[in-house]
């Protein structure tokens, strides 16, 4: 127990990859590199190598089970080719029938989170209460403390959100600054209206 190095040396890569497979098949949420390393009692670098091996074995087109890097960790999922069969057996309530309001709210929380209901309402122009409640119930957003000074509750997206949308992390969300030109156009329109009114 004193020297972890000796332990690692006693784990040939093949054996370690089997351990990783076992951990991933038992887990119900993605496991981070550190979690895998801790459970397998191995170095993260060794785990990375083992994951590479597992990934080759469990890939689309090669297996019904696929290894994926998602929501900040590693997880097994069904191969895309088997989606139809899976759909006949399993419901996916978290992502079924997401309304436009829910998606907009989800987008705001994902991009600007943690943010509060008033923040969301300010951007969408309507109260965000029911949309937030809906997303909370689905487990796509979660509470993330309060605004400073005991203010409104703030929300962030959950790992489940990243998993459902197939994101490694929130940084994978595309940049949305290409709407800059629109800002100028909108402004111009508003100014025309304003001029007409004062005239």
């Amino acid at each position, binding site marked *: 127990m004193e020297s972890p190095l000796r332990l690692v040396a006693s784990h040939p890569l093949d054996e370690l990859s089997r351990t990783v497979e076992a951990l991933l098949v038992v887990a119900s949420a993605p496991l981070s590199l550190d979690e895998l390393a801790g459970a397998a009692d191995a170095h993260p670098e060794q785990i990375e190598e083992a994951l590479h091996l597992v990934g080759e074995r469990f890939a689309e087109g090669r297996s019904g089970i696929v290894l994926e890097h998602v929501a900040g960790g590693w997880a097994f999922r069904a191969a895309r080719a088997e989606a139809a069969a899976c759909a006949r057996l399993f419901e996916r309530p978290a992502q079924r029938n997401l309304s*436009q309001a829910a998606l907009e709210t989800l987008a705001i929380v994902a991009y600007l989170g943690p943010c509060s209901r008033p923040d969301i309402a300010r951007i969408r122009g309507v109260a965000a209460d029911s949309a937030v409640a809906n997303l909370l119930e689905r487990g796509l957003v979660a509470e993330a403390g309060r605004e400073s000074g005991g203010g409104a509750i703030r929300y962030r997206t959950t790992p489940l959100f990243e998993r459902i949308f197939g994101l490694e992390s929130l940084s994978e969300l595309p940049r949305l600054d290409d709407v800059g030109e629109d800002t100028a156009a909108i402004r111009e329109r508003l100014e025309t209206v304003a001029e007409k009114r004062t005239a």
Partner: protein
Amino acid sequence: MTGVGSTEPTNSAGVGFAGAGAGISVRELELDLDAFEGPFDLLLALVLKEELDLRDVDLAGIVATFLERLAEREELDLEACGEFLVLIAALLELKARALFPDENAELAELDPEEAAEELARRLAEYRRAKEAAAWLRERLAAEGDRFFRLGPAPLAPKVETPLAPQDPAQLGAVLRLLATEPPQVSLRHMALNFPPVSQFLERFRAVLRRRSRFDFDTEVRELTRLEQASAFLAVLELRRSGELVLEQAAPFAPIRVLRSAEEKAIPDERTSEWNLRSA
């Protein structure tokens, strides 16, 4: 009806009006509220001159007053109802705005240039949110064929507290300490032996047969604290049954015990007050 806008009831305030006739005069409706007392039109005038803060005015009280007036009449005065609704709605809106200083108010304070800028910024922000939502929708459709196991959050890793190497002999010694019979705790101080109250009932009755009055403190001076307590209970008991009267000049002053036969028709105020307190 005069021209009463939903947000600008300015024109209607304090101005002469038509339609009073035989019906209810909404503007002359007499109000008696915490913040204001007088006719409705005066309230409107004061509010509009900002001499009265609407936040202090109980609008529900105005509605209740109006409904009472309305109920006093045999028939429904539609004219008055309509006028009242318009006015109270305007007041409610004004009050709501005062209670929730909102974004629009902030916008209104900006000059047109700034307001346009702010609006454009907000619209752009909303547009961005909409685009992000659209992206999420596409993403969801594209990733819809990914099935995975869902479960509760992973169990928190259990923390094992490492134990230092232990000496069995030391453990034995500690256990021996725990196994010894604990010392008997004396409960003697808890057994309060109250002398029977009846004993003092008899004693005080005897004293009062001999004397018409006595000083309680002097009488019990020789007794223990517990006996004094019992004696006091006895005195209270006798007072309740009307056999004696108690007097005390001031709190903690000596208590005088008087035979009931000498009781005055109305015991003096101080005594009754004391009796109340002792009850």
